[in-house]
Structure formats: structure tokens, C-alpha cells
């Protein structure tokens, strides 16, 4: 019940302005000229000091992007994006790349402090460290067990187009883990980047992935060496600040044989009347026996109550279970963005590999969500599980779109899909568009979906036992999303519960 109470308090505490991360940081920045052409691509590549092959790779992507058409199949409606009127690169002035914390502009540090993201390594996410517990520092020796590590999170902070700081690098290096910005990885570990970049999401995969491949400015890079269990959670925090700027980050995570990593991603943006574009690409590669757990809490600015402003979130996320017995698990909480177009997928290539997708997508106001997953079964005895919970309120539209397919040779493929939608208010819409494609008889696919509102019976039951209408709704909503919440790392779970309360504010009762 504690969580329920918290949700209610959170809801009550909120004023007219529901989006609390909507502030803007006043900081000078360096930008590429508006518009997109080959020179923009060259400019970005040059700024990053990239090797020649990388520039060629980007230019190739740019040319492919020019040949592609903007997709229109999603159940989304928005005015045409003027790609020529955007800034494709924006970096806080004076930062040529991640550096030590002391050198980072204090304004940026303040921003992250305001967002509650700990960049000082002695800090731990609020609510996890007990008061009085000694602060571990970067120089402290690695503890014997992993238990004492729990609650420590290494953060890569990305501000507009560049990574400003990455924490706990030294300690991670001791375990052999590489965690840095992708620009740095291009300089320090070009062979790894060259080998894996674009191997999961090729340049011409889709319109937005091609755009991203051409102009991505930064993002995170993770490499976990064979047999290593990453000693702490890794996390990236994305912040859009600059006006009229597209944010294009690229994340590449490689878990080598027998390794494990848990990765968290969070995002916010200022409140503006104009729409802003965010087109990211995330590639995960899990080799034999490796496991990657990727969690996202997406809280970009969703626009105001009349649907003005907000982020257009067009993201391509895909994981490749390349080795046998590998596992990739996506967990996402989507509460922000005016438009979400996002389908974190798993290619189950290795035998006995496993893909998971747990999603909570909440839309309110005029938000539009078209999200889901793809589970492509290629190897033998591969399994996948999809749990999707959509909550639509206000005048929003919330769509689950998913594909489960088993190749001819993917014998013993097994999938279970459950997508439930909850409707709050009579002006919103909830849609389910699943595709099931079994190309061999041993595939065993099960899909179920339901859509309903919070039933009067449930509310009656709760209120009859003394709960207020508001408490009852919070209880039901929390119960509805429980299956997914359980799969979030602890730090995110508490935050998510609050976020759900905030997102639904004004829609209940």
C-alpha cells in the first residue's frame, strides 16, 4: 500500500504544471548550421575527430536516408517534419568531449542535480542508500561480493548532442568493462565499434535509423568482456536543452561470452511550444551465454494540455541474441513524448536464446503512442515473452504493434504474448495490432489481448472498503502494471510508480 499512497501524494502534490522537468538551462552552445546536407554530416564527423571510415559510413547512411520515404503506417498523426529547419548538432560550448567532473560547466551539473541524477560518484540514487551508510568512492577497492555494489549506478550524461561526463569509469575499467561515450569509443576502441556498429540496425534499416546513422552525435558505448558480470548498473541520462534541435544518440552495447549487464536509460526535455525531434538508435549484441537487461524510463516533454509542443520520439531499438543461450530483456516505461514510435526488438539467432519485452505505455492529453516489439525467432528452441500494458487517458491514442515470427528452421520456438489496455475517459483510444507468423509447425505461439476500463465492480469493491475514489483508481492502476514493474531495477521501480501517478494526473475521478 505504501506505493499506492505515494502515488496519491504525488498526484496531489502536483500543481497545474504537471511536467516537473520542463525547465531550461541557460548555457551557450555550439551548433551546426540549420538543415541537413553532406556538409552537416562532415561537420559533425569533423567535430568528433572521427576516422575516415566513420565519415564514409555516415555519408553512406545519409545517401540512403535521402532515398528513403518517411514511414506512414503507424497510427500517428502529426504535421510533416521539416528536416531542413533543424539543428543536427548542438554541444554545450567548451566541451569537446567527456572530461572530469571538475571541468564540466556548473550550469550543467546544476541541471542534473535538479533532475535528481547523481553525477558525483559518492552520491547514490536517492532512496537507495540508507542514511549514515558510508559513501563508496571511485578509489575504494572492489568489494568482495556484488551485494555491496547494489545501488551504485555508473552514469553517462548526455546533454543535447554530447556526452558531458561518465562516472565510475576507473572502477569499471578494473573489471574490464568499457563504459564511455561512443565518440570516445571511436577514438579509443575503433576496432570494436567498427565490428559491431550497424550490425544489428543497418544504416538503411528504416527512415529514422538512416537519419540517425548519418548525424548521430553521441551516445553510450558498453563492452563487457567474456565471463564478466558488470559490477554495477550502467545508466545513460539524456537531456534535450537547445531549441529546434534534433537529438540523435546512438547506443551500442556488447555483452561478450558469458557476461551480464544491466543498463538503464532516462530522458527529459524542457517545455517548449515547438515540437522537437529525437531519433535514437540502440543496438545490443549478446554473444554466447551473455545476458543484457535494458531498462528505459522515457519521460520526454509530452506537450501541454492542448497538445502543443512535446518531443517526437522516433527510436529504433534492437537486440541481437547472436550466441547460443543468450538473453536480452527490454523493459520500458513510456510516459512522455508527444509522439512515440518505438519497437524494441529481439533477433533470436542463437539456439536456446531468449527475448523478453515488458512495457508500460501511458498516454494522456494529446499524446500518441505507437509502440511494441518484434520477436524474430531464427535459432532452435528459442523463447520469447511479451507483456505490454497500455494505459490511455485524456484524448490520447495508445497503440500496441508487435510481430512474433518463427523462421522455417526455428523449431521449438515458443512465444507468449499478453497485451492489456486500460482506458480512462471516453475520448481516448487503445489499439492492438499484433502479427503472428509461424512458418513451422513446432512453433508454439500464444497471444492474448484485452481492453477495458477500470470496472465499476472493482471500484465499488475498493470504495466499499473505505478507500477514496482516487485511492481506488491508484490501487487498480498499480495492480494493472505490476507484472511489468517487477522487471524494473529497484531504483527505477519507485520512480516509475511516481511517474505513473503524475502522468495520469487530471485524468481520473
Amino acid at each position, binding site marked *: 500500500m505504501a506505493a499506492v499512497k505515494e502515488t496519491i501524494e504525488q498526484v496531489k502534490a502536483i500543481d497545474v504544471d504537471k511536467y516537473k522537468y520542463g525547465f531550461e538551462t541557460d548555457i551557450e552552445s555550439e551548433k551546426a548550421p540549420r538543415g541537413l546536407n553532406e556538409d552537416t554530416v562532415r561537420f559533425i564527423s569533423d567535430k568528433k575527430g572521427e576516422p575516415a571510415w566513420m565519415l564514409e559510413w555516415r555519408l553512406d547512411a545519409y545517401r540512403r536516408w535521402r532515398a528513403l520515404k518517411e514511414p506512414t503506417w503507424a497510427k500517428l498523426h502529426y504535421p510533416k517534419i521539416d528536416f531542413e529547419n533543424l539543428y543536427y548538432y548542438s554541444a554545450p560550448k567548451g566541451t569537446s568531449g567527456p572530461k572530469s567532473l571538475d571541468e564540466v560547466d556548473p550550469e550543467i551539473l546544476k541541471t542534473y542535480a535538479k533532475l535528481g541524477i547523481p553525477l558525483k560518484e559518492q552520491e547514490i540514487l536517492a532512496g537507495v542508500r540508507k542514511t549514515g551508510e558510508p559513501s563508496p568512492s571511485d578509489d575504494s577497492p572492489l568489494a568482495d561480493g556484488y551485494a555491496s555494489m547494489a545501488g551504485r549506478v555508473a552514469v553517462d550524461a548526455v546533454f543535447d548532442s554530447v556526452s558531458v561526463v561518465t562516472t565510475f569509469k576507473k572502477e569499471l575499467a578494473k573489471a574490464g568493462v568499457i563504459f564511455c561515450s561512443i565518440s570516445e569509443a571511436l577514438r579509443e576502441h575503433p576496432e570494436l565499434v567498427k565490428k559491431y556498429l550497424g550490425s544489428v540496425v543497418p544504416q538503411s534499416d528504416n527512415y529514422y535509423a538512416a537519419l540517425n546513422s548519418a548525424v548521430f552525435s553521441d551516445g553510450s558505448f558498453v563492452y563487457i568482456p567474456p565471463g564478466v558480470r558488470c559490477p554495477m548498473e550502467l545508466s545513460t541520462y539524456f537531456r534535450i536543452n537547445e531549441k529546434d534541435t534534433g537529438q540523435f544518440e546512438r547506443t551500442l552495447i556488447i555483452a561478450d561470452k558469458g557476461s551480464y549487464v544491466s543498463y538503464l536509460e532516462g530522458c527529459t526535455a524542457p517545455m517548449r511550444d515547438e515540437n522537437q525531434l529525437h531519433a535514437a538508435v540502440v543496438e545490443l549484441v549478446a554473444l554466447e551465454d551473455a545476458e543484457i537487461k535494458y531498462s528505459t524510463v522515457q519521460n520526454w516533454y509530452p506537450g501541454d494540455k492542448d497538445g502543443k509542443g512535446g518531443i517526437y520520439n522516433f527510436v529504433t531499438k534492437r537486440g541481437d541474441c547472436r550466441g547460443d543461450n543468450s538473453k536480452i530483456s527490454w523493459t520500458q516505461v513510456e510516459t512522455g513524448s508527444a509522439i512515440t514510435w518505438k519497437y524494441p526488438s529481439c533477433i533470436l539467432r542463437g539456439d536456446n536464446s531468449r527475448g523478453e519485452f515488458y512495457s508500460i505505455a501511458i498516454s494522456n492529453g494529446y499524446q500518441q503512442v505507437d509502440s511494441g516489439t518484434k520477436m524474430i525467432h531464427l535459432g532452435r528452441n528459442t523463447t520469447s515473452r511479451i507483456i505490454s500494458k497500455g494505459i490511455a487517458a485524456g484524448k490520447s491514442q495508445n497503440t500496441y504493434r508487435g510481430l512474433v515470427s518463427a523462421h522455417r528452421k526455428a523449431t521449438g520456438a515458443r512465444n507468449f504474448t499478453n497485451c492489456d489496455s486500460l482506458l480512462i475517459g471516453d475520448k481516448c483510444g487503445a489499439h*492492438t495490432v499484433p502479427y503472428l507468423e*509461424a512458418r513451422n509447425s513446432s512453433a508454439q505461439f500464444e497471444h492474448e*489481448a484485452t481492453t477495458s476500463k477500470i470496472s465499476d465492480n472493482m471500484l465499488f469493491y475498493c470504495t466499499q472498503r473505505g478507500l477514496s475514489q482516487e485511492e481506488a483508481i491508484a490501487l487498480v492502476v498499480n495492480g494493472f502494471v505490476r507484472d511489468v514493474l517487477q522487471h524494473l531495477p529497484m531504483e527505477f521501480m519507485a520512480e516509475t510508480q511516481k511517474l505513473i501517478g503524475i502522468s495520469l494526473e487530471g485524468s481520473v475521478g
Partner: protein
Amino acid sequence: MNVTTLKTKAENQLREQFDDAATTLPGSGWVKTLRANAFAAFAADGLPHRRVEEWKYTDLRERLRDVPAPVAASSKAVTAADLDRALGSLAALDAERIVLVDGVYRADLSKITAETTVIELMSLAAMLAKAPGWLEAKFANDSGVVVALNRAFMTDGVMLKVRKDQAAAKPVLLVHARAGAEASAIAVRNVISVEAGAKLTLIEAHIALDGAATGNLTNAVTDVAIADGASCVHIKSFVDRAGSTHLSTWTTRIGKDASYRGFQLTASPALARNDINITFAGTGGKLDLSGVFLARGSEHIDTTLVVDHAVPECESRELFKGVLDGRAHGVFQGKIIVRPDAQKTDGKQMSQALMLSPDAQFSSKPELEIYADDVVCGHGATCTEIDGDLMFYCRSRGIPPDVARAMLTESFVGEAVDKIEDEAVRAAISTLAIDWLRAG
């Protein structure tokens, strides 16, 4: 008219056939314009292909390589005994009988015992020839390329009406028989009207007579209007072993407090596409739709369903089951739409496929599109091979594997067949399905 989109051989054949047949197809006045407009609508898009979302799994441009010529006037002598032989278990039903042979209404083979105060029957060809103004409205709500082709080429069909507050005492068996020894294309259109408070059981049987050609193309459209408080049971059986292509469309409008129970059995076409479009036009409507699709070899059966809850307080249930053997491909696409004010909607859908051979394929796309909040909607879809545990259970009790497989398959199909309430009809349909399963 945009002519540049017609590229494939089949599309060009259709154009030539339409040009040739324009003078011989029944109809005058507005009917000619209706046909020309319909063909233009087809020509604008051509045959649907996999980039058209609704045809993603059934690429007609790819699969329909050759279109046989439109059927010529049937000269073949067909007797009631020929029909009975081809109808199999359906022949014994105590039913009114309406017969179309090669797409032409045959009064000599049809027999309606009910009074004309209960059932009114007209041949569509006769009506098209007269072209009364009121008939034009019957085509006003047509949509889709297949229906457009039907409208362009339709030769005949029946217009059947059950008058207000009357109940057809016996089921009406509408026989679509193929007899011609030459492969041909048949386009028929049936217009069924069940007036307020009336009751009708309609069984459509698509059969091939002995000696009928292979490689036929049938495009059959049946419109059903169920007025307020009326009820209609609508059953279709398609059992063909002659490698034919079957394009079927049902468009049904369910009035206030009306009820519609539909069932489709589709067995062994080379290619079948069953489009079913249901619209609730009045509150309190009830729909129960089910079907069985059976395919083996390289057969392909597609069932595409749209249930449109346009008004509040309606209930819909769908259950479709498929058995796929050989390299067969089964497709099920089912969409439930709940319009913004259609509160208190209750919709449930289930599609299941049983795959008997390693190379069988099943593609499913159940879809919910919901714009109202006070609803209870759900769908489920499953596919797999025969459950090993169930096989083990049967075999541990001494049942040989073949028999166990047959038992399990028959009971799987039986669940959908059991939705047919009329005992005699259910038994007849069940026999057709079981015969097919055992013939494998």
C-alpha cells in the same frame, strides 16, 4: 481511368474480358455505368498485393497469375441427382433449395415450398435487366477491389427476402454449383434481406459437380441486411478438390436487437480469401461468428474479418479454427473496431491453428481498434502442432497414434462446428469436415 497500374498478365486479362463482356453482361441504363465505374475502381489500384496492408499475407498479384474467361452460358444438363451427389451430407437436409449452376439461377432445379407471403425470391440477372432505380442503392456501400470486380462482372445471383415478422420454416439451401468442363470465372452476387422481426437460416454450399473443370475462379458476394429484431443464421460450406480460387465476401448489417450467427467451412481451395464485414447498425445487436478452414498441399486460405461496433451495447463473438497440413498456409486477420460512442460493447475473438506438418504455416493478425472506454474487448490467437501430452495420454490408453491424432484433430475442429445450433445442419457440416480430415 488510370490504365497504367494494370501490369500483370491477370490484370490485363481482366481488362480484355471486361471489354469483351460489356455487351453481353446483363443490365441496362445505370447498371452499365455501375459496371464501368466498378471496373475503373479496380483499374485504379489493380490486384491487391502484399504492400496493401489488408492483403499482406495473400498477395493476389503474385498468386493470381491467370484469370480464366468469364463463364459461358451453361449448356450442360444438370440433374437433381448430380447436385445431391456433390452436396454429400447437405443433400439430405430438409430445406428449401435454390440452385445456381455456373453462376446462373436455375428455376428448374430450385424448389421453394414456402408461401410468397413468407419468402420472396428473385433472380438478380432478371432484376439487372429491368434495372429498377431502387436496386442501385444495394450497391452503394460496396468497398474493396474484390467486390468492385464482382460488381463489374456479376452475372446473376439471388435476391431473397423474408418478409416482416415471418419465419422461414425450413432452412434455405443456396447451392452454387460448378459444372462446366472448361475452367471459367464466375461472379455472383446475392442480396439477402431479413425484414423486421423475421427469421431465416441460409446455407450457402459451393460445390463442384462430377466432371467440372479445375482452375476455376469464383467471386461470390453476399450482402445480408438484418432489420430490427430479426435473426439470421448464415452458413457457408466450400468443399472443392479441384484447385480452384475462391474469393468470397460477406457484408452484413445487423439492426437493432437483431441477431446474426455466421459459420464458414472452407476446405481445400487452391486459394481462398474469405472477407467478412459486419456492421452493427442498431443497439442490442448480437453476433456469433465462427469458422473452420482446412488446407493441405500448397493450399492457401485467408479469413479476413472486420467487426464494426458502430453503435453502443452490442455483443460479438468470433471463433475460427484451422487445420493445416502439407505446405499449406492459413491466414486469419480479425479486426474489432469500437467507434467513439459505442459504449457497453462486448467483443471477443479467438483464432487457433493446428499444424499437422512441419512445413505448414500460419499467419495471424488479430486487431483491436477501440475509441470508447466502457468496453470489454479481447482477442486471442494460438498456433502449434498437436500437444505431445495429449498424444501421450491417448497412447498410454492403447489408442494407436493415427487414431489419436484423428481424434484430437476432430475434436479441435468440433469446437467451432458446435457453434451451429441446428442439429441437422451441424451434423451435415461436421460430416463434411471429418470427411476432409480423413481423406488426408
